[in-house]
C-alpha cells in the first residue's frame, strides 16, 4: 500500500475574526510557507438570480443592490444598462449625471473603507480610524441625496428615482473639498510611511502575466499594470463627457493596490465635482411602458472591478433569466498566483488586498457523494456549450458553429 504523507492544513474561516463574511480558505503549509490554497464558498449563497426571476423589472434593482452592500450602486446600474439595451431606450442626460455622481461617491467610500480595513489587517489601527472617519461625510452626502447611507435604490429603468436638488449642490462641493483635503493627507501619509513600506512592498505580488491569465478586473488588475477600466473602455452613463484618467501601477504587490485605490479616490472626487458643476437641467426619468422580448448585457465598473449583468426578457413583466458576474468571482482565484510561496502572516493581507466580496461571488456547490462524479474543465465546458445551444434553440436564435467558439 502506498503511504501518503499528509501535509498540515490551516483553516481560515468560515467565521474568522478578521474577515467579515463567511468564507473558508484551506492553506496547505510547509512550516511558515503556504504551498497550496483552496477556497470553499456557498456559505453566503442566497439565490439572488432565482429570486430575480420572480420579481418585476422595476423591483429587481432593489434586489440587486443587496447583492453586495458596498457595490449597491454599481450592480443596479449594470442591470439597468442591460434592461435599457433590451428596451432600446436612453435615460435623460440629467439622470446619467446623477448615476455617475452616486457611483463615484460610492467608490470614494468603498476605497476609503478598504484602506481602513487594510490598515486594520496589519495591526495599524490609526489608518483604520482615520480612513473611516473621513468616509463619514461621504455617507452623509449619500443619505442627503438618496435617503439611505447604503443601498441607495436610486436608479430605475429609464432614469433615476431621486433628483439632486439645486440647494444642496454648494453643500456637496464644500463637503467634497474637505474630503479631498483629508484624502490627500491620508495618501501622503500612507505613501511616505516607512512602516507601511516595510510591511506592504513586495508582498503578494501578482505579475502582469498572471493578472491577464486569471482575467482579474478592477484595482487588482490596475495594480498589476493592466490598465482596464469599463468607465474608459466602454463608457456608460456620463463617463464619456468627464475628464479623468485611469490609474495603474506596475508593481503588482499589496502596496501598489493601495496606491491605486487612494489615487482613484482622488480621481473620483474630482469626477463628482465636475459632474455636479456640469449637471444639466431637465427631467430625470422617462416613462417606460413595457420591455420587449430580447436579451441584453450591461456592465459597470464597481469599486472592485467589472460587474456584468445579463438579462433576458420574453415580453412579460419579469426577466426570464438574469445572470450576474461580480468582480470578486474572477479576483478570488488569483490567490493561487499571489499567495503560494508567501508566509502565513502575509497571506491574510494578500487575501484582503483584492477587497474580496463573497456575497457577490457566492455560487451554489452541490456535492454528490453517492455517484462519485468528478467534472473536469473539458466536461464543464461541454456542459456549458450544450446549455447555451439548448437556450439558443428555445429562443430561436441561429445555431452556433464550432468556429464561433
Amino acid at each position, binding site marked *: 500500500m502506498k503511504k501518503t504523507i499528509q501535509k498540515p492544513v490551516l483553516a481560515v474561516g468560515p467565521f474568522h475574526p478578521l474577515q*467579515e*463574511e463567511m468564507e473558508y480558505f484551506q492553506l496547505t503549509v510547509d512550516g511558515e510557507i503556504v504551498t497550496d490554497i483552496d477556497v470553499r464558498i*456557498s*456559505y453566503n*449563497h442566497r439565490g439572488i438570480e432565482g429570486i430575480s426571476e*420572480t420579481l418585476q423589472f422595476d423591483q429587481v434593482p432593489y434586489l440587486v443592490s443587496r447583492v453586495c*452592500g458596498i457595490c449597491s450602486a454599481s450592480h443596479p446600474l449594470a442591470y439597468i444598462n442591460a434592461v435599457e439595451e433590451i428596451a432600446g431606450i436612453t435615460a435623460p442626460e440629467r439622470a446619467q449625471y446623477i448615476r455617475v455622481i452616486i457611483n463615484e461617491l460610492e467608490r470614494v467610500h468603498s476605497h476609503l473603507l478598504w484602506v481602513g480595513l487594510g490598515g486594520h489587517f496589519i495591526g495599524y489601527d490609526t489608518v483604520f480610524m482615520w480612513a473611516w*472617519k473621513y468616509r463619514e461625510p461621504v455617507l452623509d452626502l449619500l443619505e442627503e441625496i438618496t435617503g439611505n447611507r447604503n*443601498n441607495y435604490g436610486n436608479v430605475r429603468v429609464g432614469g433615476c428615482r431621486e433628483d439632486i436638488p439645486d440647494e444642496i449642490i454648494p453643500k456637496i462641493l464644500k463637503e467634497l473639498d474637505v474630503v479631498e483635503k483629508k484624502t490627500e493627507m491620508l495618501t501622503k501619509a500612507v505613501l511616505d510611511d516607512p512602516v507601511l513600506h516595510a510591511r506592504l512592498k513586495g508582498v503578494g505580488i501578482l505579475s502582469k502575466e498572471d493578472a491577464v491569465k486569471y482575467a482579474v478586473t478592477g484595482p487588482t488588475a490596475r495594480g498589476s499594470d493592466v490598465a482596464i477600466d469599463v468607465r474608459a473602455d466602454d463608457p456608460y452613463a456620463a463617463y464619456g463627457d468627464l475628464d479623468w484618467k485611469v490609474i495603474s501601477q506596475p508593481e503588482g504587490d499589496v502596496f501598489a493596490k493601495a496606491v491605486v485605490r487612494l489615487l482613484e479616490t482622488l480621481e473620483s472626487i474630482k469626477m463628482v465635482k465636475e459632474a455636479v458643476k456640469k449637471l444639466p437641467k431637465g427631467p430625470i426619468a422617462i416613462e417606460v411602458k413595457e420591455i420587449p422580448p430580447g436579451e441584453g448585457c450591461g456592465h459597470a465598473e464597481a469599486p472592485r472591478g467589472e460587474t456584468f449583468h445579463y438579462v433576458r426578457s420574453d415580453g412579460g413583466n419579469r426577466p426570464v433569466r438574469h445572470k450576474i458576474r461580480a468582480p470578486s468571482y474572477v479576483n478570488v482565484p488569483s490567490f493561487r498566483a499571489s499567495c503560494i510561496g508567501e508566509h502565513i502572516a502575509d497571506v491574510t493581507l494578500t487575501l484582503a488586498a483584492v477587497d474580496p466580496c463573497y*456575497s457577490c461571488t457566492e455560487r451554489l456547490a452541490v456535492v454528490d457523494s453517492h455517484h462519485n462524479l468528478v467534472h473536469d474543465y473539458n466536461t464543464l465546458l461541454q456542459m456549458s456549450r450544450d446549455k447555451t445551444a439548448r437556450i439558443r434553440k428555445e429562443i430561436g436564435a441561429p445555431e452556433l458553429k464550432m468556429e464561433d467558439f
Partner: protein
Amino acid sequence: MGWKMWSLKKSIWVFHVNTGACNNCDIEIVNCLTPKYDIERFGIKLVGSPRHADALLVTGVVTRQAAPRLKEIYRQTSKPCVVFTIGACACDTGIFHNGYHVIGPVDKIIREEDPNAIIAYVPGCPPKPEAMISGVVKALSAI
C-alpha cells in the same frame, strides 16, 4: 435579577456573526467602532471568539450552510447572552424570503437550539449606527 444578569448589563462584549448578509449591516457594525460613533466608550467591544462574548450580533438571512454553524456558535457563547438580530434580513429574511437556499430568520434557528433565548431585533436595511446603539440600550434596559 441574579448577579449573572446584572453583570450582563455592563460593558457587553459582542461577537459578530454573518449568516448570509450583503455586508451592509456588517460595515455599519464596524462603523459603530470608528471615531464618529465610538461605542467602545460604553465598554462595548468586538471580540474574536464567541466564548468571550456576552452578545451575538447576527446579520443576514440564515442560509442552509450557515444554520448549523450559527447553532454551534450559539452553543459556544457563554450564557446568559443576548442575540441581536441586525437588519431586515436577520429579523424576518426581508427581500430574500423566497430564496431556495434561505431557511429562515435568525430567531427561528436560535429558538430551535434554545427556546428561552433572549433575542432583540434591530430592523432597517441597513439600520443606522444610531439605531444599533439605541437597540442595544433598549434591550439592556429591558432585561
